[in-house]
């Protein structure tokens, strides 16, 4: 490029280190630090507590879940057991501990499976092409159009009330919003330039999904996992409440509320305790997810006067 006698812009380049007007030096370096508010810590605390109970509860429980501790129904708290007796004389506290593992475990497995299915199908729909996307999306819409309890009703009426059917049902219902989210994320990211660069390089679709798209979806998917987990818990409890979920004498929080509902009229707290357990667990997860989502919000409201 150098024609003789031509002075181009290629002056001897100043050493970048001592260029005092190098604006590159002003770049903010270092990763952002995470700040969590008190509500998030409360949520984390409660969640850890319940996780502990789910893992070690049954081993530490004073009585077995089916063991009778009293001949009366709804024996008061403190006298016979830590939290009193239930409608046929079993220990509420022990059943609560056993029920924790049941409810939390079932919901967890169902949510994990729902995520696996939803993410794989969702990314496929985003990456594969028009027809595949249309077919998958229509099926997904159709499943979503069913009221969830009705769908569960039909499936359970067809296939019975075993735990695997329960997990399958919940998984099917929770997978649909995950599909939508994964598909939306996949589509948003697949138009980014860095994905185009990978395509131009000749990378395979699988590699692109795995290494370029997926890592960028972790954050929203993690938040969604928390939410879906709470829905699973509530849904399984609702099914148990209707008699379709976990069958007696297995302890489950929703079933416990149903069984002991009569106790309300006698002033017993037996139905309220498992409901409070459900509530506390779901609140704690929601607090964590809320805090997580709030990390990325800009606070322009201070400037609105």
């Amino acid at each position, binding site marked *: *490029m150098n024609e003789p*006698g031509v002075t181009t812009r290629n002056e001897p380049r100043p050493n970048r280190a001592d260029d005092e*007007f190098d604006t590159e030096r002003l770049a903010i370096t270092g990763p952002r630090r995470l700040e969590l508010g008190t509500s998030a810590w409360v949520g984390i605390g409660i969640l850890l507590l319940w996780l502990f109970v789910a893992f070690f509860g049954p081993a530490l429980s004073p009585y077995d879940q089916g063991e009778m501790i009293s001949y009366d129904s709804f024996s008061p708290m403190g006298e016979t057991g830590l939290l009193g007796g239930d409608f046929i004389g079993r220990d509420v506290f022990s059943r609560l501990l056993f029920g924790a593992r049941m409810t939390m475990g079932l919901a967890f497995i169902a949510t994990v499976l729902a995520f696996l299915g939803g993410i794989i199908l969702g990314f496929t729909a985003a990456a594969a092409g*028009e027809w595949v996307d249309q077919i998958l999306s229509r099926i997904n819409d159709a499943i979503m159009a069913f009221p969830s309890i009705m769908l569960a009703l039909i499936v359970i009426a067809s296939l019975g009330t075993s735990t695997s059917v329960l997990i399958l049902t919940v998984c099917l219902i929770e997978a649909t919003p995950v599909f939508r989210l994964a598909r939306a994320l996949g589509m948003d990211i697949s138009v980014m330039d*860095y994905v185009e660069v990978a395509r131009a390089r000749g990378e395979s679709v699988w590699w692109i999904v795995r290494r370029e798209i997926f890592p960028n979806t972790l954050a929203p998917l993690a938040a969604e996992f928390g939410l879906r987990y709470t829905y699973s818990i509530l849904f399984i409890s609702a099914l148990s409440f209707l008699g379709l979920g976990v069958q007696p004498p297995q302890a489950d929080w929703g079933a416990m509320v149903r069984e002991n509902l009569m106790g309300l009229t006698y002033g017993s707290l037996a139905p309220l305790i498992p409901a409070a357990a459900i509530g506390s667990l779901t609140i704690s997860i929601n607090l964590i997810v809320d805090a997580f989502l709030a990390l990325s919000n800009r606070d322009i409201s201070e400037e609105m*006067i």
Partner: protein
Amino acid sequence: MEEVLRIEHLWVEGRLPGNDYVPIVKDVDFTVRQGEVVALIGESGSGKTTISLAALGYARPGCRISKGRILMGDKNILELSNKEKRELRGRSTAYVAQSAAAAFNPAMTIDYQVTEAPVLHGLMKRREASARAIEIYRRLDLPHPETLGRLYPHQVSGGQLQRLMVAMALSCNPNLLVLDEPTTALDVTTQIEVLTAIKEIIRQQNTAAIYVTHDLAVVAQIADRILVLFDGKVQEHGTTGQIVGHPSHPYTLKLMRAVRPVPKTTLSVSDSQKPEEQSAGQPLLRVKDLTAGYGRIKKKVVLRDVCIDVPPGTVVGVIGESGCGKSTLARVIAGLLPPISGEMSLAGHALRPKIKMRSKKELQRVQIVFQMPDVALNPRQRIRDILGRPLEFYMGLSSSHRKQRVHELLEMVELSRNLLPRYPGELSGGQKQRVNLARALAAEPDLILCDEVTSSLDTLVGAAVIDLLNNLQEQLNLAYMFISHDLSTVASFADTIVVLYAGRVVEQGPLQSVIAPPHHPYTRLLLSSIPELRPGWLEDVIKSREAMTAISHAVEIIDVGCPFFKRCAMAMTGICDLQNPPLRTPVSDHQIFCHRDIADLQKAAVEP
């Protein structure tokens, strides 16, 4: 002239993650008098936007005004109550943002938004405000002023929308107008119209104005006084004549050199010197009759019959404004978008349209670098992985070889090894773009497609990248297809130039030939639209443009005839709109597609 605004010892702080505050504006003083335009020049991080917003008593989220006084009249804006601040805004002070498309609410009509401020501040009723707005539209030369207000922002073009934002700012007849890079997002040719409109109306209303920009040439046309900013501090200040004529501060000098780089032409030794790259041998890349577009069933054609040759080891600059299809060209060549028709060949062998059909070797030889550094790098991958992947993919290098090669690549693009474990979010724009480039170099290509690679960067940062590209080109004998809308940058760097308009090549040839007359009328328009560093240029251009009658029309893509027909001062109805323009070759290798013959084109260039 009376003083409208006085800023004294202004300090503004910005919040870092972790709740520490660092100063981003340091001890800035200046005043603005009535009818005066004060320009704040600097690059990103210089604090110019922050200062201009502070004049309105506003700090962006994450910033706070920590010290100083801002006096308007005799009141200190910083000490006003919220209510008083609100009353000031939109009434005594007004703001014109950089991007009109982002500043207008898409769900409200233009009229509502333009008249909102005066109605809100109780200055007039809506009917009167609308009538006044129509007046302002007329003075700003906007089309269909009576019915314009009823439209929604998305129905109006970019240049018009920018002028509408000026109208919105002026609706209350403010004392102080703050303009934040109002023409930066516009095409060069549209910029002229908007600049003129702004200048004219400021003069008419005798408003005081603060004009923020990074473009010294633009500022020379419109400002009375200039403040040069860097790192939050004023480096130099003075009248326009002083700064532009005799800049003294080293930073100002740096800016000036970068703003209008010297084209290779003006310093060439002799005309007869042909670039030696046109040696015997085939071009590295040949694009023949390429037609491409988007859409599934009915394609929207964006490029038509494009023919370009890129000889090995040369730089071909592709110039065009928004909508001309230049990015599409890059994508087609890279294999990301299969063309509708046409052929491409790489070193004589046919280049298949889709990536799937190309061999790894072929993919390696042509690499693409995108415009926006922020989205070109995966935010979840470390730099060393970003650079390592092409080495692994194309060459199958082992881990230790990769490490060594990555170090070499970083050195080539002048980056420190400290950056390797970092994520893209921790790098600056210029650094990211260099990584982008290094990634392309990792494949050891013969041709790099540079798609507007400096357009998102600050002037100085971009100039450094161009320097880098230049040096690498010499060292490695690379060929570039350098796509840009900025003719002056390309002219300092390219060997041949291709001018695209509405998807067609209207002129191409060696740099010297294209820049000197005879030109295609569009090339002439482009060349004349580049603001020069002398005050008074704007007025001269307007005069000659009136002779060129280049009405600001949207770029239209048509099937037959010359695409430039509607904007061309030399158009011949009945010929130019109905028949495709023929090829003229004033000298060999220089092509112009025009119905006018070379003599006419030569004559046109001579007239003012």
